[in-house]
């Protein structure tokens, strides 16, 4: 049976992990290579690296970092942040990235999704969508969830799939950082609407939040950052909990 995936996310600025990482038994928790390797060893199913510096100059640093991580870890990983063209992506693929995630630039230029899917295959393209509930509507926001757009979550996700995105990474900006659980209703709706996998993001605080995302939200994967970085939730413990709730996971 296909298992549900647990995905730690690392925010990277100038080649270092940011957002505070307290990782015991790690010489340098700010080193994304060490951190990615530690997560892989703990049983993470994938890793997402988000370059939040993402200027042209710094993207070269990112390709070098991707290469170091690819050399070290034996599970798939996704690289995102500031990707706005096919030219931005080729060096990341060459460095060993398994997937790239695109966000703001896809909203601005939706044809980027088609171009990347055509050039590298749909399995390589993750469309990340940050959305917030405004009135009754889930509105897509860009630039780290700050700038509202005229796009709606569900139609944008559907369009992204039609253009060739192989996965949708949905972050509820209303839930992100609250530790109050994932946004279950929109997750469920995305799952009904889409035929590509959906990754739930934003709101993880307790073990049972992940179970809810998989059972109620019917997500294919769940992503979190802080709860893993601070050791509040340990991946082996999380997976045993999910298994005991009859959710298929890789142990």
């Amino acid at each position: 049976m296909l298992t549900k995936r647990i995905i730690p996310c690392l925010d990277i600025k100038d080649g270092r992990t940011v957002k505070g990482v307290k990782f015991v038994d790690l010489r340098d928790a700010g080193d994304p290579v060490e951190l990615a390797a530690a997560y892989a060893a703990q049983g993470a199913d994938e890793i997402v690296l988000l370059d939040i510096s993402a200027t042209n100059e710094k993207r070269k640093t990112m390709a070098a970092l991707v290469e170091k991580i690819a050399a070290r870890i034996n599970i798939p990983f996704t690289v995102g942040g500031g990707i706005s063209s096919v030219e931005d992506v080729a060096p990341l693929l060459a460095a060993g990235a398994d997937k790239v995630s695109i966000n703001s630039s896809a909203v601005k230029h939706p044809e980027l999704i088609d171009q990347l899917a055509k050039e590298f295959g749909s399995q390589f393209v993750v469309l990340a969508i940050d959305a917030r509930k405004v009135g009754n509507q889930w509105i897509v926001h860009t630039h780290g969830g700050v700038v509202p757009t005229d796009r709606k979550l569900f139609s944008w996700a559907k369009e992204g799939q039609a253009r060739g995105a192989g996965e949708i990474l949905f972050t509820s900006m209303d839930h992100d950082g609250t530790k109050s659980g994932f946004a279950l209703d929109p997750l469920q709706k995305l799952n009904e609407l889409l035929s590509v996998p959906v990754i739930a993001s934003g709101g993880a605080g307790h073990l049972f939040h992940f179970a809810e995302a998989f059972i109620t939200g019917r997500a294919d994967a769940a992503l979190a950052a802080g709860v893993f970085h601070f050791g509040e939730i340990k991946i082996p413990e999380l997976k045993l909990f999910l298994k005991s709730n009859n959710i298929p996971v890789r142990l």
Partner: protein
Amino acid sequence: MNIAVIQYNAGNIRSVAFALERLGVNYIVTDQPEEILKADKVIFPGVGEARSTMSYLKEKKLDQLIIALRQPVLGICLGMQLLCRHSEENNTPCLGVFDVSVKKFVSTPQSKVPHMGWNALTNVGDWLASSITEKQVYFVHSYYVPINPFTTATTIYTVPFSAALRKNNFYGVQFHPEKSAETGEMILKNFLHSSL
């Protein structure tokens, strides 16, 4: 031992190379026939689309070379599918080592396509160590090889399909051992240590 990784426009060559480095084996990534022919073992990786990849292999005359190889050859993902007779992906005639036709998954509300993520190996036999039965490995694919006389491991996703194949010196895996954590490493080692 010398390993040749066949160089072509596949997406996962770098990942395969890194996995071999982690295992500490000597390898070269090459599309030169003489280099491939003299290698002890050959890895035929693959991420991409069947028809364009077959055209590329033909253009480089790698198609004839691959099927004539005598040493152990491991096809990974699309590499394994291309070792079959035919693929439904853009109706592509393939290399024909395994006399079986590659089919497309039909997506259902419960099962999305591509089949992406970690899934379990069952009915493990032949060159794959039985210790990996029920272990999960990483898959990303929309097409599959049905169960056939050469199947050496199966996985279930909407239907049971071939997770691994073997015929004489030709081996194939549908999953990505280079991305399948310790289980993947064990499978690569099995192949590297296998004798005909």
